[in-house]
């Protein structure tokens, strides 16, 4: 079971994403519609994955990635983008997002994307541990 933080300024979207994840998985979900709250949340809690909208008031997704990266270089960030804005999604990936998913998407697609991101995170952690073990020998 993973702990997932969802950031989206659209309440409906936030509610739906949380519902889909809670309905279909055992993951724990925390949500916020205020991107400015995210850093505080990441500081106080351990999250295995952040799912974020790209276009939000106060702080957009790309800025958010940069800020999260300053605090935690490992946490995967999955970006959700509006229809027809792949370029900005690609920029987000260049800036350190793990991947992006474009609306419209099927409920199953977001679940697959979450699984993949968590798997990637797990492998990355294992790799780091192996490297650390190797270096300490």
């Amino acid at each position, binding site marked *: 079971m993973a702990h997932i933080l969802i950031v989206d300024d659209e309440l409906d979207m*936030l509610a739906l994403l949380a519902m889909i994840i809670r309905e279909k998985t055992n993951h724990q979900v925390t949500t916020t519609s205020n991107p400015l709250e995210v850093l505080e949340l990441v500081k106080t809690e351990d999250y295995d994955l952040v799912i974020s909208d790209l276009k939000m008031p106060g702080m957009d997704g790309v800025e958010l990635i940069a800020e999260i990266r300053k605090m935690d270089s490992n946490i995967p960030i999955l970006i959700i983008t509006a229809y027809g804005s792949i370029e900005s999604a690609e920029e987000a990936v260049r800036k350190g997002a793990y991947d992006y998913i474009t609306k419209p998407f099927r409920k199953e697609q977001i679940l697959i994307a979450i699984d993949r991101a968590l798997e990637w995170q797990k492998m990355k952690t294992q790799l780091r541990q192996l490297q650390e073990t190797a270096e300490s020998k």
Partner: protein
Amino acid sequence: MRSLLDIFKKIKFKRTETSTPSPPERTIFKERYDCFQKLLSANNSVLETMADMEEKISGDYIFDMSYVRSTCETVVESVHNIIEHLNKLSNGKYSALYDAFEKINSDIEGALAKKAEIPVTPFTIPFEQVTKDMVNSVGGKNANLGEVKNRVNLPVPEGFCISAYAFKKFMDYDKLRDEITLSSVDIGDVEGLNRISKKVRDLIMKAHIPPDLERSISNAYLELSKKIAHRGGILNASVRSSAIHEDAHFTFAGQYKTALNVVPENLTKKYREVVASLFTPRAIFYCESKGFQEEDMVMAVGVVEMIDAKASGVMYSRDPTDAGRDAIIINAVWGLGPYAVEGKVSPNTYVVSKDSDRTILEKNIPVQGVMLKCSPEEGAGEVEALEGKEGKPCLADDQIKTLAEYALVLEQHYGKPQDIEWSLDQNDNFFILQSRPLRILAEKSKKPIPTSLRGYKLLIDKGQIACKGVGAGKVYLITKEEDLENFPEGAVLVAKHTSPKFVTVMNKASAIVADVGSPTGHMASLAREYNVPTILNTEVAMKSLEAGQEITVDAINRNIYEGRIEELVEAGKTENPFKDTPVFKVLKGVLQNIVPLNLIYPEDEEKFRPELCETFHDITRFAHEVAMNEMFKIGGGPDVKKGGAIKLVVKLPLDIHVIDLGGGVKNDSDKITPDHILSIPMNALLKGLMEIEWPGPPPVNVKGFLSVVANTTIQPHSEKALWEPSFAVISKEYMNFSIRLGYHLQTVEAYAGDNLNDNYIRFLLKGGGASIDRRARRTRLIKEVLEKIDFHVDRTGDVLDGRVTKYDRATIEKKLGTVAKLTAFTKQLDMTLFNDAVVDWYVQEFIKKHYVEEKKPGRC
């Protein structure tokens, strides 16, 4: 970004000029064919986009406004292209379609912009006159409070609304709208957003309130104070925001101002403050980034009796974190409500069961050190919470149960779980301050629908899903149009082909299954509109399913089972929480102008007219139908002989000339052979023509046949007439072949490409040299054969008009082969068709010999 409105405007004024000088004939053919192809392509674009949009409305997808706008843009442009090309093809014959287009376009524009009309109402409206239907006049919060007071009959504070119309008049009075120009804002610049937000708010604070509005507020307040005087409490009011779009698209909750405990003299000042809070940086961000209009920002205000609360709180009629738990959650704090939601103090929490006793399951009473209380003069301030400090519960058990009861009454009234604000006055009277739908509801996980079920006989497990869902009922086979008349309630419609005419029974059908058809076809679209679970292209339904047989159609996993499987039917019923979201409603709204199909009877000229097109689907369907007719004329026109025809050298008793529109012939020499033909339909037809032995003498094994022939006056058919040239206008996918056979003219037109929706064969036969009864017999013979190979045939006297549509390319080729054989078979048949029995014999003979059953139509 180019706005959709710009595109609409551009399109509105761009009509096609069709009066161009006449170029050489071949170029005309090419141009017309080019138009036809572009029309087909636009037609497919509309159908595909429409199917995509309808799929999104199924509830399985998450989408946004960009998607809705972008797909609408595609449909609008494609439909406009269709109209343009059709008018080019027909020399402007269907210009009436432009008017239909503009009307529908404007309706879509309206649905997209979704501008809230501000109804003209009095400036102030007492709560006694308010219900939830008045959102556009008084805003969501006020409307719900009125509903609770007047229809649910629960206690709410006295009060009145300052209407949306009052807001409009206020904004108009100092021409505030002209001052507020948000379009220049750079939404990425947070500082800039703050700056403009402050500027707008300052403007509003300084603006004058129209005198008649001021008077209305003061009179309404006077009335209010009379109503509340008997309570003996304070006579101040709270001034609350009630924006028209509050809680609609985005997170505005908590953004707008509420002023507590306002003295009468300050009412208009606080009114300004609440109105100004509409223009927060966040709201401006949405206005500019998500395509709202400034005019969409409308603020009504509620002036509500101030309840000097002993305790306040929020409650949920269902546990928002566990909807499966049948419980009501009540939070309570000492003093005024804002502390219950602001997290300043830890509230009391009570969990109440929904059982008949309203059993209190849990109580959590933390210590509360401070509370918010009405200040003696105005406003509210923090004071010590004496009872809270001692850890006393805010509510007694009977009060908890009363509140729980209220929560349930509200949930029942609104039909969905509610998030409720309440307050308890110093005399222990409860008041409901707000009730709205409860958000973020974790529904109990539904069992996923099993992909296959053991213990049930699986009848069909293939096809393409056109509308998701599960339906069960008795099989009702449709073999001809008239069968629809007796369609039983709840039956499963099973047919070989799809037809938009099935719409007449879609309110009765529990599912639809067809052997052929595509999810992007017209009928599929209708099935989605009526939400009838539908599987198409099953290939074998007509053979595998029996009339009256009870079946369950699982159009989620593409399975059809024997018997009625309640488990599946139940699992197929999906609740769709997304359907309540505004973006879903916008898509649904625009689809109303795009998808419904009203023009379903092309043969009825009264009902099949451009003026009657009410949706883009109607225009598309109409244009596709008449475009085929326009193209059909291409081969029969007087220009065909001048079109640069090349002679086809072929061992057939026909003088064939070919006009290539592009891609139909390998090289451009004076003479060509069948090996040079690249046209898919032409090759299919030629293959059929060459495979059959052209008819010799009539059969000898029919009783009395020869003797009757001997006694029949045979109409002379000169060799000259037989050898009149036949013209084929072709391209790679298209063929329009006018074959002269003796005295009759037969035209076969076909399109055989990769997109199943484009494909068709049309067969027209007219004339002949025999007597009327013989010609009639010949047409009967051909009609019966064509119907056996799935053509829909209309026969008027000796004119036959048959067509078959939407088959995959391979099947169209096979059918063309059969049509070719039929052509040769019936050559000069008139002379032998001396009675009806002979016709029956010929039909059987032909089918037996030449009809290769298309057992396995390919997929699209």
